[in-house]
């Protein structure tokens, strides 16, 4: 018997120029099955159409955090509740 993966609802957060370009600071949505890693999620963002296509045109310029921790593009998003997108940090 196969068990279907339960629906994955996440909160997506956007900061700095990603917030400005998308016009969104926070959204809650259900991830399509098949989006398993950060890299796949970045590709999906770029495929959403305006204004996300332009904001995510250069995924190498975007950093991602899962539940408040920095991760690499290869990271699995399976257990993430909050996923944040932002440019390289510039504090200090």
């Amino acid at each position, binding site marked *: 018997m196969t068990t279907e993966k339960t629906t994955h609802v996440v909160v997506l957060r956007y900061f700095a120029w990603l917030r400005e370009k998308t016009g969104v600071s926070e959204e809650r949505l259900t991830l399509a099955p098949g989006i398993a890693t950060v890299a796949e999620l970045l590709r999906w963002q770029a495929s959403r159409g305006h204004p996300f296509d332009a904001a995510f045109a250069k995924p190498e310029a975007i950093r991602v955090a899962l539940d*408040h*921790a920095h991760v690499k593009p290869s990271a699995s998003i399976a257990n993430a509740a909050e996923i*944040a997108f932002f*440019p390289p940090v*510039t*504090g*200090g």
Partner: protein
Amino acid sequence: MSVRVETADFDISAEMARLTAGNTGIGAVASFVGKVRDHVEGAPLTSMTLEHYAGMTEAELERIEAEAQRRFNLSASLIVHRVGDLKPGDNIVLVIACASHRQAAFAGAEYLMDYLKTRAPFWKKEVLANGDARWVEAHESDDAAAMAWQTSEK
């Protein structure tokens, strides 16, 4: 051991007194203050806005502070970072590292700043005198400074 993110300015003397109170084992206190410059690449700067990721910022600063504490055996430390709208001359960030001896205090303060600049989720937006507003881009030299601590791991 504490981190704070706030809009208000800080008083370095008061912070230092509070951090060292009751701990006479401390023999060295090193501090660093980052301030808003009045120019960027020769162009006059009017203001700067600091945005951050509330929740992750505190978590990341606490991770950085715990690692500095472990590496340099700090007796006490503090990170205060301001957010919101700032003007040239305003304070942005305060780091204080306390240890028995100066080498650990100096190194601890530098480590805290190097990792804060590359890991803590803050973003600066500059407004220039000509009206242009732009997000500050990350410097590769900052990444190199943080990486240098990894290769110097004993």
